[in-house]
Structures are given as C-alpha cells and as structure tokens.
C-alpha cells in the first residue's frame, strides 16, 4: 500500500542525440508521508513526476499506487503542481479554479466553495475576481497550489513548489502543505532547498542523472555517510587557525557566528573540543555534535563526482565545500 516506482527507464530522442533521463529509478513512498524528491537540475525529477501522472510514458518499468498501475488510477487520485507555473492569464482566479475542479469532477458549486475557502485561508479572498495576470508571482503560486489540491487528491506531486517565493509566502505555502498532510494526502515534492526538506520531509530520495543515489528516512540518510559535523564558536579570533593542526577535521563552513567542521569517520569529535580547550586564550561558547546536513550530503553525493555535465561542475566549484576541499 504505497506509491511504488519500479525500475523506470526513459530515454529521449534517438541515435547520437539520445538522452537517458531515467536509468532504472526505483523507490517507494508510504501513504500519508511527506516525501522529498531531491536532485540537481536535469537529474530527472520532472520526468519522473510526469511518468507518475502518465503525462508521458516510461520506456520500461512500472508505477503503482496501492497496487494499481498509476495509469489506471482515477485522475483525481493525483494533484499536480508543475514546475512551470501555468494559469490562464486573462481568466478570473475563481473561474479558473472552478474550471480545474470541474475537470476533476468536483461539482461546480462545491469547487467554488472550496476555492473560496482556500483563498480565505491564504488571506487573499479579494483575488477571487482578479485576473491571474494581475497577480504577483507568489500569489499566482498560491492559486496554482489551490488548483492542485481543490479536488482533495490522495497523492500530491509538487515540482519545486517553493522556488521563487519570498519567506512570507513560502511559510504560508508550507502551512497549506501541512494542512494537506493532516487531511491524509501523500505528498511528494521536489526541491533543491535542503532546509525545507529537513523541515518538512520524513523520507527522501536523491537522484542524479537518472539514477537513485540514496534514499530512506532522513535519519537513515544522514547516518549513512558515517561522518559527523561539529559546530563550534569561540570568543576571540573566529578564524581559529589552530584547527588546522587537528587531524581528520576539515572546515566546511567558516562563519562569524560559528564554524562548521567535518569530522572524518573514526575521529572522535571531542578531539576538537580538547584542542580548543588546550589552546591558550580560547573560550568555547558553543560546541555541538550533529549529523551532516542534507545539503552537505547532497553535495557529497552529487556535486563532487567527476562529471561531464558542465552545470554540475560549476555548481560544485562555487560552493564553499568544494572550495574548502
């Protein structure tokens, strides 16, 4: 009883120009969970979502929801917020929401009631009779979200729902997100903003160039690296030059507030604390041992590998981790 993807393969084009978008992608999402679908741009996230929705068809492999092939599940099982936002620019907001509801077989009066309720929840009831093109990007995003959830789908697929949103709108959308979870929806969302994943998701899968690189619950994923992270802050010289002498430790993120260190497997994080205390004139104000952040894991799994894809190489060289290593 879950959303199960089994060995999805998808190639685009043919001959010399063929691109393998998915190369045996398998993972499963438990009902009622918030699932983070991670990967760099071009990793195959959008393609996977389109295949789940049966907008395009995989070359091989299957997708099933509660044991039924996804193509045979009723359309209103799914709610979809695509990466490319799309609304009818010259149509009134309420009218287009009712239209989408109509397509999903929600009765028109019921669709209107739900749409108004959602607009109220988002604090924008006066947008009902505005045309979509008059709204800001963040507000269009809210409307797009309502369009995706109006029919109360069992599975909500969201392709980068938070991209381009200011913090206020992002938190409003996050709240709506959790509301859908409370109503029992299974939520799959793709993003490359790792802080949101840590905040919202129970499980994740990371794909890179069409392959699953790692997956599981957040905790398991974090532990899988075997590394630990130390965050330390001291009075005085925040550059902490003495750290260079500690073996098996690398500075990942130097900062004014605190410095983040990567501690190799087999090295006791406490050696850092000991070194600090041994060093004359240093007063430790903060010391914390933690699992590595998803962002670091992401970079480790995706960014640092030798790669033929220029944009990934660029991404790696411009991040602090890569610069530090």
């Amino acid at each position, binding site marked *: 009883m879950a959303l199960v993807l089994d060995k999805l393969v998808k190639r685009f084009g043919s001959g010399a120009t063929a*691109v393998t978008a998915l190369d045996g992608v398998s993972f499963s999402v438990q009902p009622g969970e918030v699932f983070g679908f991670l990967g760099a741009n071009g990793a195959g996230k*959008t393609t996977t979502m389109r295949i789940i929705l049966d907008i*395009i*068809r995989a070359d091989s492999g299957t997708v099933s929801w509660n044991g039924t092939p996804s193509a045979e599940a009723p359309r209103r099982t799914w709610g979809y917020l695509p990466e*490319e936002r799309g*609304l009818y620019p010259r149509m009134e907001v309420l009218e287009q929401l009712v239209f989408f509801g109509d*397509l999903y077989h929600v009765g028109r009066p019921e669709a209107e009631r739900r749409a108004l309720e959602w607009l109220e929840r988002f604090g924008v009831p006066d947008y009902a009779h505005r045309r979509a093109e008059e709204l800001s990007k963040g507000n269009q995003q809210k409307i797009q979200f309502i369009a995706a959830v109006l029919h109360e789908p069992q599975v909500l697929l969201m392709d980068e729902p938070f991209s381009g949103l200011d913090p206020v709108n992002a938190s409003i959308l996050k709240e709506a997100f959790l509301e859908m979870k409370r109503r029992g929806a299974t939520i799959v969302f793709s993003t*490359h903003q790792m802080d949101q994943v840590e905040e919202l998701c129970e499980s994740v899968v990371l794909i890179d160039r069409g392959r699953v690189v790692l997956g599981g619950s957040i905790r398991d994923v974090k532990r899988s690296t075997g590394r630990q992270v130390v965050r330390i802050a001291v009075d005085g010289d925040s550059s902490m030059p003495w750290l260079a002498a500690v073996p098996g430790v690398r500075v990942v993120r130097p900062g004014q507030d605190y410095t983040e260190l990567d501690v190799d497997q087999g090295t006791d994080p406490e050696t850092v604390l000991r070194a600090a205390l041994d060093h004359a004139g240093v007063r430790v104000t903060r010391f914390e041992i933690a699992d590595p952040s998803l962002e670091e894991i992401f970079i480790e799994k995706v960014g640092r590998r030798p790669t033929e894809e220029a944009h990934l190489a660029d991404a790696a060289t411009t991040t602090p981790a890569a610069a530090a290593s």
Partner: protein
Amino acid sequence: MLFRLLYQWFKRRRAGRDAAGGAGSGSGSGAASGSGTAAGLGAASGSGTAAGSGAASGSAAAGRPGDQPISLERGARAMSLELQNVRAVARREYLARARTRSFRITTVVLVVVAIGVALAPIGIRLIDQGSGPSRIEVSLGSSASKLDIVAQLQAILNSQATSNPLGGGAPTYAVSATTDETGARAAVASGALTGLLIVGRGPATSTGAEGDLAFTFVTKAKGVDRISQLMQVAATGMAQADRLARSGLTPAQQAGLVAPVGYATQLPDGTTDTSSSPEDYVNSFAVGFVLAIILFMAIILYGQWVAYSVAEEKSSRVMEVILGAASPLELLAGKVVGVGGLALTQYAIIFVPALLIVLLQDQIASLVLGEPAAAASLPAGLSIELLVVWGILFLLGFALYATLYAGAAALVSRTEDINAIVAPMTMVSVAGYLVAVYSSTGLISPDAPFVHVMALIPFFSPYLVLSLLGQHAISGIEVVAAIVLLAVFVPIALWVAARLYAAGVLMYGQRPGLKLLSRVLRGG
C-alpha cells in the same frame, strides 16, 4: 515537404528579430512564450535557489525540460474521452472567448451591418417615396405628332421603372407639357426639374414630307444615369411609333406589329427546363456562392481561434496543469466544440435578425410605406434543402479543419508561428473555395468531371457541394456521398490531431517537420 519548407522560410525570416529580442525575453514571466522562456524561467528560479542554499548555481537553465527532446509517446490516457471533461473544456473555451471585448465589439458591429444591409431595400424605397416623383417637362413645339407624347412618355418611363429589381417602389416620373422652354431650362438648372424634353421634327426624308421626330433632352443627369438611358429608349420607341402612324397604320395594327412571338425551348427529352430562367440562374449561383463564402470565413476565422487557443495554453504553460486532469483528446474535442459553438452563436446573432428582416420584408415595407403586403417567403434561390445541407457541411467542415488546426498549433511554441504551421491547410481550404467560386460564376464549368471529383473529397467538399447544389448541378447521391465521406473523415482527423497534440503540447522549441510528423503519427 511544403510543410517544412514553409516553416523554415518563416524561421529564417524571424531569425534576426529573435537574436535581438532573445536576451530581453529571458526575464519574462510564464506568459512570455517560446523556448526563450524555458531558459529564462530556469535561470530565474535557479538563481533564487542559489541564494538560499548554494547547492545550485545560476546556470540552472541547462537540462530544463525545454531543452530536452521531449518524448513523442504518451501515457495510456492520451486517447481517453470523458464527456464531462469535454464539456468543461468547451464551456471554458466558449465563455473565455465570448467575454473578450473584441468578440463583443465585432459581433455588435456585424449585427448592425447585417441589419443595415437587410433593411437597405426598404430604406431606399422609403427615401424615394419621401422625395416624390421626378418631374419631367416636355416642350412639344412644332412637332405636331398624332401621338400623345406626354402620355406615352409617362407610360414608358414608369413601366421601365417598375421592373426595377428592388421592387415596386422604384422612382416614378411625372411628365407634363410646357410651352415655356426658357423657364423649364432654368428649372432644370436649379434642380426643380429632372429634365426637359424638347420634341421637334427633323428635315423631310424620302419616306414622307414630314421628317422623323427629333428629341433633345436637357438635363444635368449623366449619360450613365438611369433617366438618361430610359429617356433614350422612350425616344426611340416614340419615334418608331410616329413613323408607323405617319405611314397610316392604326394603333391596333401597330400593336399587332409588336405583339410577342411564339418561342419556346425544350430539353432533348422533350421536357421543359423550368429551373433555368436567367433570373433563377442568377439567384441560384448567388445563393450557393454566398453560403460558400460564409462557410469559408467560418473555417478560416474560427479555425484560427482554435489554433490560437492551443498555442496560448502552451505558451502560458497552463497545458501541463490541464494534462494532469484531462486527456489531449478531451482537450482537443472540447476546444473544437467550444469554439464551434461560439461560432454558431455569433452567426445566429448576426444572421437571424437579418434573415427575419429579409423574410418579412414585405410586411415591414407595408408598415413603413403603407403598401399591401405579400406572404413571407424565402428569398429566391434559397431553399430549406440548401440550408439544411449548409448546416451539416458547416458542422462537419468546421470540425475537420478546426481539429487539424489545433493539432498543428500544438507543434509550435509561439503564437507567432501559428500562421506558418497552418498555412498548408489554409491553402487546401482556399483551393476548394476558389474552385467553388469559379464554378459558381461560370469560369469553370460546374459539369466538369474534376469539379465533381473534388466535391467528394472531404477537404474540398464543404465548399463545392454548396456551390454546385445552389446551381442544381449536383445529384442527391453525390451530396449524400460527400457528406458521408466527410463524416467518416472527421474522426480520422480527430485521431491524427490528437496524436499531434499529445506529442506537441509538452514540446517546446523543436522544429516541426515532416520527419517529426511521421514519427508522431507512427507513435515512435
């Protein structure tokens, strides 16, 4: 091949402008269209993300769906058809178009024009009635004819006038005698008199002591004006009657001389062709002609609407949202039904009032002009049968072209490219229309075999059947066969268009060509 050549030509023509405008369009919102937008949006969202986490740099554009070749295959639902979704799409399409200001303005303007044209004959009669008869004076001088020239002239001028095609209310003329030639000339100059006819005698001829009647018409009317031509006819008639009178024939004998001659035509089988009086002929070709024009305009105009609607959904990226909810076939059918319904509505709004006015012309005329009314009837040449066939051809012909327009439009990324991609079909449409018009007007014989073959071919038949039927140049069997073939072809077109649509809707920035077309249709 035509398909591709045209498209490439169009591309080349645009290339310069694109290069200049490309950078600017990158920062646009989702409403900006085309492949430029795919990269633009990518860059915008990518840089926003980079600021937050550093995980992605600004070079996010690469690897976007817009840059990838998109699958030509479709999920299993591509061809599913739920009527509820078709209705929802049709309803949206209908209302969204009907509410635009341009639609309302166009409709109102066309209604006014159509009613104006329908009322024109009555209006002309009303104006003529208000102005009274044109006055013409005759100066008999020394002509001394046995004829009553004043009475004769009045009779001839007005008998000609009543055969005016606009009906019984055409200009009438009041003729009176005068002896004051100078005063009458002044009245003509001032416009109070339409004309002054001076009647005299020419020099003696070999046939008698008295010469022929000679006429001088003093008027400001031009030679091509109706009164000038009428007057010349009248003068000739009177001069000839005067000759006969001078040679001693009595009025009864004269009447016998010009009495109608027995003359009839017969078809080879001995029957009489009742359909081909010159007047009927003009009416029938005119009606078929007009109906073909209306159909042609509907297909070109509303077909373009369907095409634009598809391309707009693509460029605003709303397509992907809808595809989660409805199949391409449902979208396609909904669009054609919605726009077709709106087309019929607009036609009804424009033509029903005008048609009612034409039908009730005599009643309206009697109200306005106080003349006795005849029973309402269809204009000559327009039969119920022709209208029914027109209705069927309108629906099927529109469905055929509009679905293919929609399928083709799904292959382009920008509304500007629509004209290039639908050009081949528009040409086919124009070809059928031109042959129909030429065969109506006699430039091509309506009996030519190739015309009848074309009348069976679905893309041409809507136009040709109408024009041939108007001329009674097509048999009932041919009409039925053409309609059946057309009806069979519509689902085929729908299938082809749905394939194109399914493949095209998520395809941005690819050049549609024949190779692509064949891949799409083979499903590979």
